[in-house]
């Protein structure tokens, strides 16, 4: 990777687009990416160590803050392990409420992603609309939990807040609205030529490579790997619900887009079932302050893929070990593979396409010439603009489409 005719471009660790730090050192030959060196760890906060020094109850709130987007994912994954060790029978109603919040979280995360993806390819109208619609689900989450993120819904042995019949009606109404909007996004994603052209064949990872590189979540499913913890290793109420695991065989960013928008429809289906079947009864059981010695591994399908928590208890009120593996960490090798032999202009969308979350995982991107003293550093807005212009020159331009959409959506 150090040939004299190769450029090395550092992107990150401070990065306006991803809002999180990570570092990609990209080796370029002309505009072609010859290899990528990824440096993570900028967000390492020592949470696993900190968890050993706090009680289980304190850890729920600490671990909820592993990630700002999948906060419910991490707290659920953690408490499931603790509940297994303590042999707590979590009431059905609590399991259903956890599932409800989990799917609402997936909706907000996937809509967020759709907007970011739109932005990265210069389709800012899509960003504006999907983020506007995302507010619908954010409002529901705020009504149910009091917060837009870090819901504080989970506790060991159940959930902390019940759901009223009034709230059920509000959720159903919101889901109807979101479903209508999502149908429109599916139409845009699958029929709009510009999107198809811009995303097809970009960031390709074949079925075999997805298996070999151990991809998780929508990244794996868009390469035809049917891997979804909700179906394979059911937790909460998923074992009693009917839903499809969405896969796609395009194996590229386009496939990942299709998988996510279709997963939204499955989430609405799950939520309607949860609300219909919502069992009566208590929402929590009392947890013991001391958790008996033991160990458990818990898995959870977060919006980005499989989240894994391992907890070891030693018979005190504090865990002996908490190990967290967020989904993005499992997809790091996949990104390296996707970028190889692609163009620099594809980098923003390829990275965005795994929906990276480096706070969970912990991440960066920078660009420099190895043989010269002066580093040619691209800022993210500059790289973003470069990417859009590069494709504009190739005839892929969203300006007209953006205008068309605005016309169509005028009241």
């Amino acid at each position, binding site marked *: 990777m150090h040939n004299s005719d190769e450029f090395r471009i550092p992107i990150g660790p401070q990065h306006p687009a991803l809002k999180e730090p990570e570092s990609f050192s990209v080796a370029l030959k002309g505009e072609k990416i010859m290899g990528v*060196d*990824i*440096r*993570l*760890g900028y967000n*390492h906060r*020592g949470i*696993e*160590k900190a968890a050993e020094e706090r009680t289980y109850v304190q850890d729920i709130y600490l671990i909820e803050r592993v990630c700002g987007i999948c906060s419910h994912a991490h707290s659920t994954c953690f408490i499931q392990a603790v509940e*297994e060790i303590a042999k707590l029978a979590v009431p059905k109603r609590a399991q259903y409420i956890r599932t409800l919040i989990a799917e609402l979280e997936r909706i907000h995360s996937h809509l967020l992603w759709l907007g970011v993806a739109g932005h990265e390819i210069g389709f800012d109208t899509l960003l504006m609309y999907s983020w506007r619609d995302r507010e619908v689900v954010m409002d529901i989450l705020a009504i149910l939990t009091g917060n837009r993120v870090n819901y504080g819904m989970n506790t060991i042995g159940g959930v902390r807040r019940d759901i009223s019949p009034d709230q059920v009606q509000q959720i159903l109404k919101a889901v109807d609205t979101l479903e209508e909007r999502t149908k429109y996004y599916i139409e845009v994603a699958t029929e709009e030529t510009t999107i198809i052209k811009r995303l097809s064949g970009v960031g390709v990872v074949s079925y075999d490579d997805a*298996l*070999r*590189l*151990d991809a998780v979540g929508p990244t794996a499913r868009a390469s035809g790997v*049917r*891997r979804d*913890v909700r*179906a*394979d*290793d*059911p937790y909460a109420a998923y074992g009693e619900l009917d839903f499809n695991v969405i896969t796609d065989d395009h194996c590229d960013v386009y496939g990942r887009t299709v998988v996510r928008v279709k997963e939204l429809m499955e989430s609405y289906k799950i939520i309607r079932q949860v609300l219909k079947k919502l069992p009566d009864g208590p929402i929590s059981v009392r947890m013991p302050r001391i958790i008996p010695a033991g*160990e*458990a*591994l818990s*898995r959870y399908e977060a919006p980005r893929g*499989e989240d*894994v928590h*391992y907890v*070891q208890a030693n018979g005190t009120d504090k865990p002996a*070990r908490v*190990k967290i*593996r967020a989904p993005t*960490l*499992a997809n*790091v*090798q*996949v990104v390296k593979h996707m970028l190889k032999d692609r163009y620099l202009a594809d980098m923003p969308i390829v990275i965005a396409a795994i929906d990276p979350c480096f706070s969970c995982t*912990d991440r960066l991107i920078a660009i420099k010439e190895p043989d010269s003293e002066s580093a040619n550093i691209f800022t993210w807005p500059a790289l973003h603009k470069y990417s859009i212009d590069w494709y504009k020159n190739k005839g892929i331009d969203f300006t007209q489409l953006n205008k068309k959409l605005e016309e169509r959506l005028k009241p």
Partner: protein
Amino acid sequence: MVNPEEKIKEELISKFSFLESAINIVRPKRISIEVALDKFMPVFSFIARDLKFMHLCTITGLDEGENMGFIYHLADEYGSVINLKTFAPKNNPTIQTVTGYFAGAEIYERELVDLFGAKVEGLPEGNRYPLTDDWPKDQFPLRKDWKGLKNA
């Protein structure tokens, strides 16, 4: 009808008789196995390749006093997970890399190196993870006796 966990257990014992008392079916879809370090690679290879546990969820490091524990969490496509545990003495915690089986293991093994001071034979050169480049080489935060950097 034998349940899938029993079947996996039988297959493992017929191949490795020394595992007889080392396999514990914790619950449906969860199997724990403890294996000595010198027998680890053949067992790991059998689970990953022959039993088709094709997904390495992660590797957990443990500080257990005299020994360092390493748990490899392997999952198959039906959602069963084998927690394969092995040990290495703390004064020389050397393990073999599994990157030949799972490319994604690279980052998990670097975590073991940084946070537990494990030595991973066969792990290619690369950026450290997750600690900073100037982090002292003899400080391993997830070891139990580690209480913070001195002079920090």
